[in-house]
């Protein structure tokens, strides 16, 4: 090798890598800090919109946790799996609960939110938050409005069941999407699972959590 005379020492190699790594780390931290607030806001707004969508009429919401045999307000930023949301109208009148659920779909985890009316034992709306179902087939669980609208006023007195399109008899049954049976069944299964988990924790009718004006949980949402 003719250029072996000029070969730089290992110190120079390490130094150049270290400098590049340092600059790169600095840029990444800068962009992370720059976009952090917007990303957090986007996520909060997305969730709030989803809650208002599954609880028609709701204009305010509170985040709740199940603690010591009752639902208590949550005063932290962000959302975790152990939260349930309560929707209220303009005057602070309780409308219903929005319950989160997640489970395996056809390709990846589907996470969704559904509105629940405890007085009627009814699902009053469903919104897919995140999914990677097959475009054109499985993604009909949120693109096919006929399917989505089936969850507006669906009795959940017993387990929901997805049946072949047109075969719906009972009030707890819904028509699956043709060509996306697995995804439709996954949605139903996720709702059943989440409902089983939350229904013993939801207080009896008449004891709904009241709207608390100017609490921090509400403040973080209205930002």
């Amino acid at each position, binding site marked *: 090798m003719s250029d072996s005379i000029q*070969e*730089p020492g290992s110190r*120079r*190699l390490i130094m*150049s*890598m270290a400098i*590049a*790594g340092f*600059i*790169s780390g600095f*840029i*990444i931290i800068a*962009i*992370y800090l*720059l*976009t952090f607030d*917007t*990303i957090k806001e*986007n*996520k909060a707004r*997305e969730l709030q919109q989803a809650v208002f969508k599954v609880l028609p009429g709701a204009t305010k919401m509170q985040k709740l946790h199940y603690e010591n045999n009752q639902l208590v307000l949550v005063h932290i930023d962000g959302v975790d799996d152990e939260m349930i949301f309560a929707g209220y109208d303009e005057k602070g009148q309780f409308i219903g609960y929005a319950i989160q659920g997640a489970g395996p779909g056809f390709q990846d985890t589907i996470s969704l939110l559904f509105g629940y009316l405890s007085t009627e034992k009814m699902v009053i709306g469903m919104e897919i938050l*995140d999914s990677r179902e*097959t*475009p*054109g*087939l499985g993604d009909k669980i949120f693109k096919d409005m006929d399917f989505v609208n089936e969850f507006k006023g669906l009795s959940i007195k017993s387990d929901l069941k997805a049946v072949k399109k047109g075969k719906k008899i009972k009030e707890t049954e819904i028509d699956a999407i043709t*060509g996306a049976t697995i995804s439709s069944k996954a949605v139903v299964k996720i709702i059943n699972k989440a409902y089983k988990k939350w229904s013993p924790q939801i207080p009896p009718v008449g004891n709904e959590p009241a709207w608390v004006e100017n609490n921090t949980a509400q403040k973080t949402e209205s930002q």
Partner: protein
Amino acid sequence: MMATDNIAYEEMIKGIWRDNPVFVQVLGMCPMLAVTNSAINAVVMGVATFFVLVGSSFLVSAFKQWIPKQVRISLYIIIIATFVTVVDYSLLAMLPAIHKELGAFIPLIVANCMILGRQEAFASKNTVKFAVMDAVGMSAGFMIALFSLGAVREILGVGALFGFDLFGPDFEPWVIMILPPGGFLTLGLLLLFFNWMTEKRKQFLIQLAEVDNETIKVKANG
């Protein structure tokens, strides 16, 4: 001055047709097949790649004399990965809906061999001006390829373009076109079309040259 301008222009143009990264070099196939199920995804992926490629080519070319040969690939990867992270967070903040769709494929731009290939083959050996020109051309070519694939697949597979319905409710979409096999089919057909065009052009140029030769001969004889 004119001459270098022409060469720089040539460096840019070659990426779009003669050396198109997808149709001629057949590079960057992973994003090509994965994110082209709709035209908008393809365009955003193209813009993201454009930003990463132009940025990295500029830096690699500008710092080429300080980059030791032995660790150059690792340094290119650090530079590319930094730009990709910037794109990733910016998309998440500005276009969250599209970021959701492209999600897993944005970080994978780091592994797009087309980008690393341009650093190794071109940016590390040329001046900043040429490197940037080359990067603009290459990413434009990549974007055109992504867009043509995405548009064909969305038109046939959904019956829409950029989400606008084209054929009305009676159209039965060819669902296979937005599934992975549709990507391979469309890519194959586009490659065929591209090669056929190139062949045609070559024959036309040969014919043109022959005609020229004959006129020269005729003139010489006459």
